[in-house]
């Protein structure tokens, strides 16, 4: 069995875990992050993609609201290519309690969130999908954020300082001796091989799996698993994030991302942290509520539904849902349970991941006797793409393609542009919906942590557009068939990928998307007879 050594092992490759890894690395603490799947395969890719201003929490959770606005401003600064400065709106409809608005304005002001009343007529002119019945509207500094990109930004930054990452490695045991954690045991999810890491500290940042991870060390951490379903529209319905001005509830936020819009979410307590199946009833309920803000919602094309599990935390036993705080908690298991060398970071939100990481590493660094201060709020995640490089990119990918690739690739954009300059054939676009080139796909395949077509998708957005992978998955398989990790069982690779896309399409199979489904079953069954492929 292979054995590694690191001072700290971080469990969980979501926003919090990767944020912690970066923070540790920047403070010079040797660390390995372990993740059971690909980075962001869990909660950190299954959310609105909303960088909260905090306004949503202002009335009920002032502390969470204050943290949000501070972190929002920090992420804009350190990760500009991951944040789209859309701005946000809170709109009130006739059926909403007007008194709530007054309460909300006061709460925002107290939390330091700017909220300026907007001219309703002008707003509707700029965002014509909005209901003409909107009574009041306020502008807040909400943004859209790309979860995948931030996570990879964290990891790449951490790697530059010597940190390591093991994806597709699930923790199977946490070893301890004399009341102190000594290491972890892992199982490679792709080939079943075991491996162990000796360490001084384990940080449990496993999100909805936090309770399960803690249990491996014999500890009890009450993570409430709260499933939220979201839908993706194949249109940019509006140019700003739009929230409903009333106490937080289901289906009351729209977030525009590039050419699509995400509407969510629902809230249901579940038992399984991996329960990411979007329910059809939840989808229909979402659309119904969403229609109050966007009356013509039914006529727009949905591309898919997806679901994520919020890891909520409340000390003691609580049931779940909207009433549970969105605050995070840092559990020092030495103090709490008498087990040295283990901390858990639970609860919280994507928006505040960096702060959660900072607090966690402050605690851990103290225990390890490291005095280096946190630098994650000051140091940019990646160097910006220069104008000159962008120009070179435009010559090989065209204007929109270059811009998208530059945003996706950040630091790696230069390498990909260079590849295409050397070999123009590599500039061909394999995913037409998201304008992803062969060079970019090959770059993702070369990265060392791409084992499935899904990993390529999360790194490049290949397969995330209108056709949901119908054309580009076949092309990507073809383009990568020379790579050892993709040369194996084509049926399995392709089926797994198409099945994941299918899972999201099924709850929205009507209208345009049903036509698309008929085309994709036509291609893979009628044309390729792939259902009987060996």
């Amino acid at each position, binding site marked *: 069995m292979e054995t590694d050594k690191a001072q700290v092992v971080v469990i969980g490759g979501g926003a919090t875990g990767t944020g912690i890894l970066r923070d540790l690395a920047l403070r010079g603490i040797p660390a390995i992050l372990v993740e059971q799947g690909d980075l962001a395969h869990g909660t950190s890719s299954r959310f609105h993609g909303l960088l909260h201003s905090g306004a949503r929490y202002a009335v009920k959770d002032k502390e969470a609201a204050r943290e949000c606005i501070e972190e929002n401003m920090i992420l804009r600064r350190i990760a500009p290519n991951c944040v789209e400065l859309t701005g946000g709106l809170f709109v009130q409809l006739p059926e909403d309690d007007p008194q709530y608005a007054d309460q909300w304005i006061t709460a925002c002001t107290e939390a330091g969130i700017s909220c300026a009343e907007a001219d309703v007529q002008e707003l509707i002119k700029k965002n014509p999908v909005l209901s003409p019945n909107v009574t009041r509207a306020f502008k807040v500094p909400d943004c859209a954020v790309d979860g995948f990109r931030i996570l990879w930004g964290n990891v790449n930054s951490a790697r530059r300082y010597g940190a390591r990452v093991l994806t597709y490695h699930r923790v199977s045991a946490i070893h301890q001796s004399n009341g102190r954690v000594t290491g972890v045991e892992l199982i490679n999810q792709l080939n079943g091989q075991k491996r162990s890491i000796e360490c001084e500290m384990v940080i449990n940042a496993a999100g909805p799996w936090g309770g399960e991870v803690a249990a491996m060390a014999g500890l009890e951490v009450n993570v409430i698993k709260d499933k939220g379903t979201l839908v993706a529209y194949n249109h940019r319905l509006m140019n700003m994030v739009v929230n409903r001005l009333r106490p937080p509830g289901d289906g009351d936020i729209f977030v525009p991302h590039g050419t699509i819009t995400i509407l969510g979410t629902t809230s249901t307590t579940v038992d399984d942290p991996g329960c990411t199946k979007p329910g059809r009833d939840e989808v*229909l309920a979402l659309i119904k509520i969403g229609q109050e803000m966007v009356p013509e919602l*039914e006529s727009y094309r949905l591309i898919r539904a997806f679901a994520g599990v919020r890891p909520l935390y409340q000390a003691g036993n609580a049931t779940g849902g909207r009433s549970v705080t969105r605050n995070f908690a840092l559990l020092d298991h030495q103090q709490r349970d008498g087990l040295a060398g283990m901390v858990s970071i639970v609860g919280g939100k994507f928006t505040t991941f960096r702060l959660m990481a900072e607090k966690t590493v402050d605690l851990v660094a103290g225990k390890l006797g490291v005095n280096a201060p946190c630098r994650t709020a000051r140091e940019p995640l990646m160097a910006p793409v220069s104008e000159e490089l962008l120009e070179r990119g435009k010559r090989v990918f065209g204007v929109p393609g270059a811009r998208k690739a530059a945003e996706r690739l950040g630091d790696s954009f230069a390498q990909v542009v260079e590849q295409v300059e050397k070999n123009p*054939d590599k500039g*061909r676009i*394999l995913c037409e919906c998201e304008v992803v080139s*062969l060079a970019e796909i090959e770059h993702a395949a070369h990265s060392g942590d791409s084992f499935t077509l899904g990993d390529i998708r999360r790194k490049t957005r290949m397969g995330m557009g209108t056709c949901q992978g119908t*054309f580009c998955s*076949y*092309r990507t*398989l*073809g*383009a990568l*068939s*020379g790579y050892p990790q993709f*040369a194996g069982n*084509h*049926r399995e690779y392709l*089926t797994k990928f*198409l*099945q994941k*896309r*299918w899972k999201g399409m*099924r709850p929205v*199979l*009507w*209208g345009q998307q*049903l*036509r698309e*489904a*008929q*085309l*994709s*079953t*036509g*291609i*893979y*069954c*009628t*044309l*390729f*007879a*792939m*259902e*009987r*492929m*060996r």
Partner: protein
Amino acid sequence: MNKYTDVLIIGAGLSGLMAAAKAAEQGKKVMLVAKGMGAVGLSSGCIDLWGYNLEDPNQVCQDPLAEIARLCAVNPQHPYARVRDVLEESLLFFRRVCQENGYPYLDHRGGNWLLPTALGTLRPTYLAPASMALGDLQQVRGVLVVGFRELKDFYPDVLAANLKKSGVLQANCPLNTLMVCAGGGELTPNTLAHRLENPVVVDRIVDQIKPHLLPGAVLLLPPVLGERWDSQVAKNLAEKLGHPVYEVANIPPALPGQRLQQMLLHHVKGRGVEVVIGCTVNGARVADKRCTEVLATGAGKPIKISAKTVILATGSFLGGGLESKPGKAWESIFRLPVETGHEKWSARDFLSMAGHLFNQMGIKVNEHLRPVDKTGEVIIENVMVTGANLAGCNHPIEKCGNGVAVASGYKAGKLAGEVGE
């Protein structure tokens, strides 16, 4: 603008074109209007009749016509049960039309061809154009898969790896791949097919392939050998190489389906059918269970068309013939009912061997292809339904879509001269 015709066909897919060809042959005044180019251009270009055994759906069916006879007995709701009386004559008619236009479709001694696809899978089909009709893979003494550097939709190594795995080739059969250059740049299947119409380009490709040929080898290429149905590219290439050359089925756009459509369009226009592409039928007037006229828009202008018989060949959800909302589906022009069942519309697995209910949804018809309600009562007497609009056909799994289209289109064209007027 007002138009009058005996037979109005809505849709330019395979069933619509078959209906037009048959009705025109019977001396009817025929008009065909279509929104777009029809789904036959997206298909393999082959006529899949029936792919597998009813008892063992993993076993390729050796006698599709006999299997369909058995199917009609066990599943009288299948569209084949409505058209079985004309099935054989419809196939003969189809082949005659193809032959007359110099684009013959070949059968495999009454059984199924088992043809390779670009993914390296094998698909059973009943009739194939000459450029695809690879006799028997078990007998070949070598395979060379040739791809084009300009084309992003075809990967010889993928085809070869999976063809090898399929176990159909003899164990010692050499299977090689080769990439050739057709002049550089990036090409779509259509622009590449256009370029290959130039004999100089073909010669350059022949030069690149020749050094890699092994005795007795057949060549497999992407479906780009020629733009038109009367193209000689595949034939010339085979002659110059001295080896048989075949196109394999691939993701759309692919030329064989497009060629079949062009050929049939050419045929029906030659028989006097008035064809209007880019014409959307938005609605219809129905009185006393008869359609008195349909309302269409072509080139931005409203058109009213009255016809004795209307053939609805509008192609399911994909073609726009059927529409849907959560829990509801209906036919888009006449609002004919579409049964959606109480079950889920789709199966959990994308590649489910049971198929998906949405692909089986459609319009119920009687033996004259007239739309009927739940009780079997005809809803509109002078409307007939064909092709993918018919309910009860699990075509992606059964491999029978184009077969149902040929037979139902033919039958509608034939009946247009006989009943309901």
